[in-house]
């Protein structure tokens, strides 16, 4: 038999090293690549469930009307009817789940009303805005306005 290559020993040793490295990589990836990786794309599909896991802190608005139907009725016909409950009252999923366990604080009208209604150049011109001192002279918004139906009486 004619030997085509001389000194093949070092090539074989190198090939053996590559094979060993490849084998170690295959074994390591078996343990280190998460289950299902690549099913939907280049990521771990369990991450979708992780992102779904937290419980919402803002309740579904429909759950408010279950108990507070008097407020729902009071809001009818007002421009505030489109403002959902938790826009002013904050996250209330815990309260909706157990009304006794979590009693929400009453919002502070002095800051809450002005968050939306303080005069700002950047606000749309048609949106009702006031300069608090000129408009009420420091009087609380609640002396004249009911937040659930803020249009003054008779208007």
């Amino acid at each position, binding site marked *: 038999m004619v030997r085509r290559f001389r000194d093949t020993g070092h090539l074989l040793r190198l090939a053996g090293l590559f094979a060993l490295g490849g084998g170690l990589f295959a074994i390591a990836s078996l343990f280190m690549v998460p289950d299902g990786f690549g099913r939907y794309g*280049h990521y771990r599909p369990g991450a979708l469930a992780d992102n779904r896991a937290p419980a*919402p802190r803002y309740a579904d608005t429909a759950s408010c009307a279950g108990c507070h139907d008097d407020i729902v009725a009071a809001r009818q016909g007002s421009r505030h009817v489109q403002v959902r409950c*938790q826009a002013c009252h904050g996250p209330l999923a815990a309260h909706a789940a157990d009304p006794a366990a979590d009693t929400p604080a009453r919002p502070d009208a002095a800051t809450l009303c002005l968050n*939306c209604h303080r005069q700002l150049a950047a*606000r749309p011109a048609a949106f009702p805005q006031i300069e608090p001192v000129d408009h009420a002279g420091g009087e609380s918004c609640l002396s004249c306005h009911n937040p659930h139906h803020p249009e003054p009486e008779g208007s």
Partner: protein
Amino acid sequence: MDIDRRQFILLAGKALVLTPAAAVVLARLAAGQAAEAPGYEMARHWWAMAIDIEKCIGCGNCVRACKAENDVPREPAYFRTWVERYHVPVDDPEHPLVDSPDGGFDGFPARRTADGQAKDFFVPKLCNHCAQSPCVQVCPVGATFDSPDGVVLVDKTRCLGCRYCVQACPYGCRFIDPRTRVVDKCTLCYHRITRGETTACCETCPTGARRLGDLKDPRDPIHDWLRTNMVQVLKPQMATHAKVYYANLDGAVR
């Protein structure tokens, strides 16, 4: 059944090797089946957001709601959504003045009055949930990804905190959470929309300036909205296929 000692040892040996192997295979199959939530089919949704600049009053409700809903660090500079105020001089529209004190968390101070020399308006910002997202392309470990329903999400157990994605996002929508040292961003309230609820920012927006939309639902009002408004996305030149659509957006907005 007659079986000699040699056959028995062979059989027992095979069983000893194969049983754990089968258990491993079964465990892998079982683990791979829990990704879908009950009652929610990812393939039936393609989420987007519609923002109407002319309705935004800069109240900051979305910023506060987002932080409360998603446990975003309270300190300034960490936002999943924030509101910018633009002041665009009429004679120099390419150099708008933009401010966003604390992201709009406490609303905006009255800095200027309308004087006819400039336009003023608010621009709510959030992750654009790009269909071709640069942040997804640069992640070296597959920790950030486009979900099958069109939401860009983060796998916080895989993220290394290398910050490539923070730099890659053309919209500045990502930050490193100082508590976990991994990246955090808007998930489009993935935990809410997969339960059939809207996002916290849309839930609390008093004027309906921002609305969640499902582009795969033919009855979703977002289709009418997209047809009847003049709509733009931010930085279309980046070819990110952003899915946050802005109506009545000024060209000065970057």
